[in-house]
Every structure is written in C-alpha cells, then in structure tokens.
C-alpha cells in the first residue's frame, strides 16, 4: 500500500517536473499546479456522510437528509478552502544552504501572502529530509526555516520542494511542487589537530598576526558575516553598494592548506582535518589557499572564500583524486 502510494507520488512528481519545467524564484503558486486528495480522516468523513445519507433516506426523513447534505457540502467547501489556502502564495528561498556533518541544516523560506485571507498550516517539505509548518497572516510575508535531518559530509541536491496544507479540518491535503533545485553543502565535521606553525623562513620574517589585517587590498562586495570594522562605510554613505575593504596578509605569504600535507588518515579524516584548518585560518583572518586533488583555491581571505573552501570540502569525492 505504502509502496503503491510512493510510486504514485513519484510518477506525479516526475510528470509535473516534465510538464512545468524549472521555476523561477520567487514562485507564485498557480491554480493548475495544486493537487488535492482526501486524507484518511477525509475518507472517514465521507463514509460517515454516506451512513448519514442512508439513515436519512431509509427513515424518509427530510431533516436528517438536510443535515447529511449540509455535512457533505461542508466537505466540498473545505476542499475549496484547502485548495485556495495554497493558491497565489509566493515562495522564495535561498536555494543553497551550508552546514556541517552531523550538525543542524536548514533552508530559509519566505512565504508571501498578498490575499486578504490568512494562510493557515502551510507546510514546506524538502523531500523526505525535513518539513516545517507556519501561518501567514493576510497581506504579509512570513519567514520559515525548514530544518533538515543531520547528514554525513557531501552535497545533497533536491530537485524540487513541496508545499502542503491540510487546513481546514484535515479532511483534504492540497500540495504543489516547486521545481527549484535546492542544494545543501555538508562540510565535514572539523576534527584533528591545529596546524603546526610554519617554519619562520617560509613566512618571509613578517609577523602574520600583526600584518594579516593591515594591508588594504581594494574593495569587494559585502557578504554576510564580514566583521563590521571591515565595512567600507564611506562608500555606503555615498549611496553605493555595501562594500567591504579587503585586507590580506602579504601576497608573498600565502598559507596553503594542502591535502597532501595531511597524512596517514582515510579520506574523511583528511577532509575533517582540512576543514579544521580552514575554520582556524578564517577565524584568525588569515589569507589561505586550499589544495585538493584536482582542485586549487587561490589564497585569499574573507567569508566568501571560507564558504568556497567549505563547499569544496563538502563536494570532494575520492573519485576525483588524480
């Protein structure tokens, strides 16, 4: 039974993906893309209604008949409201999320409701990995963080996500698929030892801790997580884009976090060690580069770089070793 249902769901999802193609964000839920079916409770209500109808017909009782018809009409009305609960809802999401193996993972959705009715019990499901429920008041939008199950290191790609609702009464379930691929980069859980200090000769005699922040190396776009003292406030005040002053240590003094420098462990162990070093280096606001088999990220600093390194670690597959 369960497998039959899974097969049906999979077929429907594949059909919807073929028919409607990829969606753009923010996505507005269209009438034709909402599917609706009775739930188990809804089927029980239907059975109750048939029983009421038969009882009333059998006693030839017009009042009983009226009551039974009122209940069946209520079910029809509930079906309409279940459908409209999703209709014209606007969904936005940052389609990429990051996290660490075994740690918390989540997608942040924004649900926009322009209608004059509250949307109740809107459930967003990211495949079988996570779901969350929220209400969206009339003419507002509401954020919704959907937590995902903890996962091992790797990249999780979800071809689409789903919005569901059972409001009102839980007699019907309406749902829709939003064909926006979601990606979660699960970096390794950092482990291992701190990086031993490099020989003094290799660093050109410059104290990295005092020099690393001092060299102004131009502006780059703002990314969340940048220390506030690095913000280019003057640029912002002139009405420009939020920008960050980029500082680096001496260009001649890059710190290479190298796969080949981690010895004597399996792949995951080595990645965990590299992850620890990346985080340490980012914490110390050093300039660092990452070398993995088949991939090299040039030394630099900043949040964007840290993210790129972590994603590279998450996406690394041993098959790509040279």
């Amino acid at each position: 039974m369960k497998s039959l249902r899974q097969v049906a769901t999979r077929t429907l999802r594949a059909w919807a993906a073929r028919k409607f193609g990829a969606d753009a964000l923010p996505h507005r839920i269209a009438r034709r893309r909402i599917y609706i079916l009775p739930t188990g409770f809804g089927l029980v209500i239907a059975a109750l209604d048939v029983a009421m109808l038969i009882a009333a017909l059998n006693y030839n009782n017009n009042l009983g008949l009226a009551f039974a018809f009122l209940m069946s009409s209520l079910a029809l009305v509930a079906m309409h409201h279940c459908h409209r609960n999703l209709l014209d809802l606007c969904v936005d999401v940052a389609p990429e999320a990051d996290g660490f193996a075994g740690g918390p993972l989540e997608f942040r959705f924004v649900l926009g409701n322009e209608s004059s009715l509250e949307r109740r019990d809107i459930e967003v499901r990211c495949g079988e990995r996570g779901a969350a429920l929220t209400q969206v008041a009339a003419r507002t939008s509401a954020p919704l963080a959907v937590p995902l199950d903890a996962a091992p290191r790797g990249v999780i790609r979800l071809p689409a996500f789903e919005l569901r609702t059972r409001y009102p009464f839980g007699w019907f379930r309406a749902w829709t698929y939003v064909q926006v691929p979601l990606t979660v980069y699960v970096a390794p859980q950092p482990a291992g030892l701190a990086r031993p200090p490099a020989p003094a000769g290799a660093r050109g005699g410059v104290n990295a801790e005092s020099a690393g922040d001092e060299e102004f190396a131009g502006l780059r776009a703002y990314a969340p997580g940048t220390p506030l003292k690095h913000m280019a406030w003057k640029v912002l005040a002139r009405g420009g884009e939020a920008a960050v002053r980029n500082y680096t240590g001496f260009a001649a003094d890059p710190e290479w976090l190298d796969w080949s420098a981690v010895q004597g462990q399996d792949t995951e162990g080595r990645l965990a060690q590299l992850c620890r070093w990346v985080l340490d280096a980012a914490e110390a606001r050093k300039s660092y580069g990452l070398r993995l088999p088949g991939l090299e990220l040039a030394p630099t600093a900043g949040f964007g770089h840290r993210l790129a390194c972590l994603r590279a670690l998450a996406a690394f597959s041993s098959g790509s070793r040279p």
Partner: protein
Amino acid sequence: MSSAALPMQQRVSREQLSATAGCLLLALLPHLPGLRWWIIATIGVVGGLRVLLALRGRDAPPRAVSALLALLAISMLAVKFRGFSGLAAGTALLTLTAGLKLLETRTRRDLCVIVLIIYFLALTALLANTSFLLLGYSLLIAWVTTASLLCTTTTAQDLSPRAGLTDGARLLLQALPIALVLWLFFPRFAEPLWHAPNPDNAATTGLSDTLSPGDITDLALSDDVAFRVHFRGAPPPAAERYWRGPVLYDFDGRTWRRRDAELIASPALEPQGPAYVYTITLEPHGHNWIYTLDWPSSWDLPRAFLTPDYMLIQSSPVAQPLSVTATSHTHTAASDDLGAALRERDTRLPPGSNPRTRAFAVQLRAQHPEPLDYMAAVLEMFQTEQYFYTLVPPPLGADPVDEFLFDTKQGFCGHYASAFAVLMRAAGIPARVVTGYYGGTYNRYADYWLVRQSDAHAWVEVWIEGRGWTHVDPTSAIAPGRIDHSVRDAESASAALGMPLPGRLPWLRELRLRADALRELWRSRILGYNQDSQQRLLAHVRVPDPDVGKLVVVLAGALCLALAWLTWQVRREMRTPPTDAAARAFERLCAKLAGCGLGRGASEPAESYAARVAAARPDLAREVVALCRRYNELRYGRAARPADLERFAAAVRAFRPRGSRASS
C-alpha cells in the same frame, strides 16, 4: 523528522478537550429522555472525570482502565438491548462510545473521532424528532462542533475560540446553498430503501381497529393532531364531515373488531351529489389505514386500495406524515342487493350475549316492521329517555350493552354506536360500526381543517334495501351539535379526571391555530417534501414531463452552478479590500503607481518598494518615499490617530504621478 507537520498526533490542550466535551454535551441533550439512566450516568462520570483531569493538567487514565470500562459498557448494552439494531440501541452505543473515547483522549486524533460521533448524534436526534426547533438546535451543534474541529486540527496558535466560531460559521454558510440544492433535487424514493424499522416513538396513536366500551375516552381529552385537510373548493356542510376510519363488524358481545380474512365483496355504491376534492395529511398513527371523507371514490396513492367496506388501506403502517389527495361524495346509493354472506355477517350476534337488548329489539321491531321506522323509534328512545352523554361513564360488566341501555344510560359515542348496531342486528337489519373522526376546526390562517384526536367518533352504517349503506349517528340523537357540547363535556370530564385542558380561551385558541398553521406549513413543505413535490418543482421551472432522470440532470446542473458560486465566493474572500484605513490608502497608492508601470511586487515591503520607485522615477522619489514612510509609521508604529489616518488618505488622494516615463 517532520513531527511538527503532524498536528493530529499532538497532545490535546485543556481548551480543545473542554470545547469538544461541551459539544458532546450539547449533542447528548436531545437524546437524554430516550437514554437509560446508567448510560447517562456512565457518560457523565467518565466525561466529567476526563475534563477534571484535563483542567488539572493531567493526562488520560491508563488504557487498561478505559478498555475495561468499554468492555463492561458494551457487554451491558448487548445484554440490555439484545443486539445493536434499531435507533435506540444505536444511539446508546454511539453515546457510550463517545463518552469512553473522551476518557481515553490523548491526542487531537482522538478528539476528531468524538467530533464524528457528535455529527452522527445530531443526525439521529433529527431522525427521532422532526420539530423546527430541533433542526435549529442541530445546526447550532454543527456550528460549535465545526468550530471546535477547526481549532483542534490547525496549528495556528492564535486561532481563538472566537475566530474558530467565525470561520466555522463562514464555512457552514458557504455550505448552505450547496446543501439546499442537494436537498431540493436529490431524488427521493417513493419507498424506503429497505423496510425502515419503526422509529421507537412512533407507537400507534389515535383510533385502533377495535372498539370496546370506554375506548375513546382518552382520545377525547387529547389535543394531538390526527390530520389536517385542505379542500379544493367549498367544504361539505358540517353535518357531513365524517372522516371514515376502521369499519368494525365482528362483535363478541363487548368488543367490535374487523377481520381482514372476512372481507366479502359488497355491492358497489353509486356516488351521489357533489364531489369533494381534498388533500388530507395524516400524522403518523402506526396503522395501515388512511382516513378519508365518507365515501371515497378516488385517491392519488398508487399503493393504497379500497376494501369492500370502503376503508382506504395501504400495505405498510403510516409511520411518517402522509399526504393523500382524494375525492369523496357524501351521498351514495346502491341498487344491488346485499349478498347473503354479507347479510349473515352483518346481522351476526354472539349467542347468549346481551339478552335484554335482543328481547327488547325483537319486541320493538314487531311494533315497527319498516326498517326506517324501527331506526327512528330507537333514535327517539335515545332522545326522549334519560340517556346522558358523558366521557366518564360508569364501568360496565359482562353484558355491557344491556347494562348501558337499561341501567346506567350514560355513555359516549362508542356506547351509543355499539348499542344502536346491536339493536339493529337483533332486529335482523344488517349494521356495522364505523370509527373515525367527526368535524374539525377551520384554520383560516392557512386554509385547512384541523382534526384533533378529541374529534374521534363512532357511528353506525345500516343497510337499507334500495338505499344501500345508510349513515346513522345515534350520538347526535342525544347531543345534537355535539362539537359545541363536547367542549363542556370535555371540561367536566377533565375536572372528573383531574386533568387540565389546554387552550380553551378564545385568544389562546387563535394563537394555537396560528402556531398550528406554521407547523402545518413546516410539515407539508419541509417534512412532507417528496417525489411528487420534486416533480411539481420541476414542472414549475418548465421542465417538460419531469421524471427521475431529468431530476438528476437538473441536480447536476444546479450543483455545477452552486460550485461555481462557491469558487467565486472564495476568490472574492481572498480579494477583500483591507479593513485597515492605512492599508486601504496604501493600496490606492500602489494602484496609482502601477498605472505608471511601477506595480508593487509580491509581498514587497513598503520601504524597498519606495526605493525601487525612487530609482525608476527620481521626479516622484521624494513624495513616494515620504508616503511609504508615513504608511509604515501608521501601520506598524504606535496606535495611529484618526486624524493622521485621514491626512495620509488625503495625501494619497492628492498624489498624481504624471504619465509613465518608460512609455513616453
């Protein structure tokens, strides 16, 4: 993983449990009179216990307790009712299940089960009692139960009971037109799906098919409605409004009966005089005969037939209100001779019974050889001698007719009819007793005649050669104008029996007639809505040759219309303009800007919208940014004063973006 997504498995809150328990109590109230005391006690105790536990923040008792209780209750039910069929047993089972389910309620799913039972209890209450008030009460139950279900099944934290009631009412109101369409056009069956078990309260009322001395007394004091009659055209004169019920011909010395096995073909009667067409609507009386005006000649009930003694009979008892349109003639004639078998049957008297009466009859017949003279002599005896009409006659012994005629001389219609028929038979004249109703009260508020149980009557039919069965009402010999006298008599009777009689004051009587007119309307239009009414409705909307097939087509069409209305209604609800003055004015502003090709995006915040407009139209920037800031202050700042709102609305009205730069 997705536990947040399954509200049904969440624990119930104190409020949810109390609300559902309250709904259950409301749904149980109409059933209380029909429930055994131990069932009420069980539900009261377990339900009260569970609500108390919930109020103290405690969980349900262990499952073993409720399982044991359930086992006990169900086995008790099985023993007491010997099975679970029938309305009373079904209702008892349902109510017990609901109470026990309440006791073991832990999750919201449990409450949903109780809600199902509440809906069904509301329905069974309507099956047992079809009053207007109960329908209103059932709708009230449906409303509060639906609201409580709404609050139970949603995870919206701020769904207050008040919001639940509002939204529940909205949903039910939207369901009403669809329900109305279904009710109007859903095909009714002429016959029930299978033989309906008689509702337990539909015991036989009114006249029975036997007549013993003292039988009609309780009816004479009953104000219950027997039936209502609407005449098409003028009604017959008062003296001819005899409503024919059971015809009794088998006499055992005390009791008159009829035996269907003894029906003998009777000479046909030729209707005489004017034909009266009328619709008679019977209250359920639990017997299979249908009262008609003396003498019926045609009727529109295909499953009913006329017996040789002119009783209209149908195969099943009248368990529901029944309407029949019939034609009758108050005068008949018969040219044929009464057959020997029938003559023998209708002059038969049990040997040895009522000897004094028989001797008297033989003696009197000798003085009056003509049957009509003899009848007149008997009636004159009733009139001139000290015969009294009373509803509380003295009890009669082994030969009741003897004692009544010669000793007590007190009785009412049953005594006189019985005595008269015996006197006729003893003199060799075929006679039979007819029971039914006489007269009725005209209700001018709805143009019908109301016949109550207190109008119950008995009279005699005598076979006169050349005239056929002739109607004789011996009671009228003693108490002419019996209707008026019956009031006084009934009052003395009620004093004697220590029972008050309702509504003898004129204004009260008028009020009661008005109330009965309303009841009649309710009964005929709502409760009596049936296959014929549906076909008349179809004919009214110009459907040619209405039948069930066309009814289904009309139903489908009307249902499509109703659903289209619902879709439109729901869309309209979604687009209701905001009630908040600031939001309304802001929407106007957005509409004006949309006219320049600068519409506000889906749930775009006012501030970023202003920035976007400012970037696209520097000439409008100052004004738009200021208005948007003002809007945010009014909407989300501290409570806005009406004057500020007014000024904001005026500013929006005054705002006129000139043309679209993009298009110029």
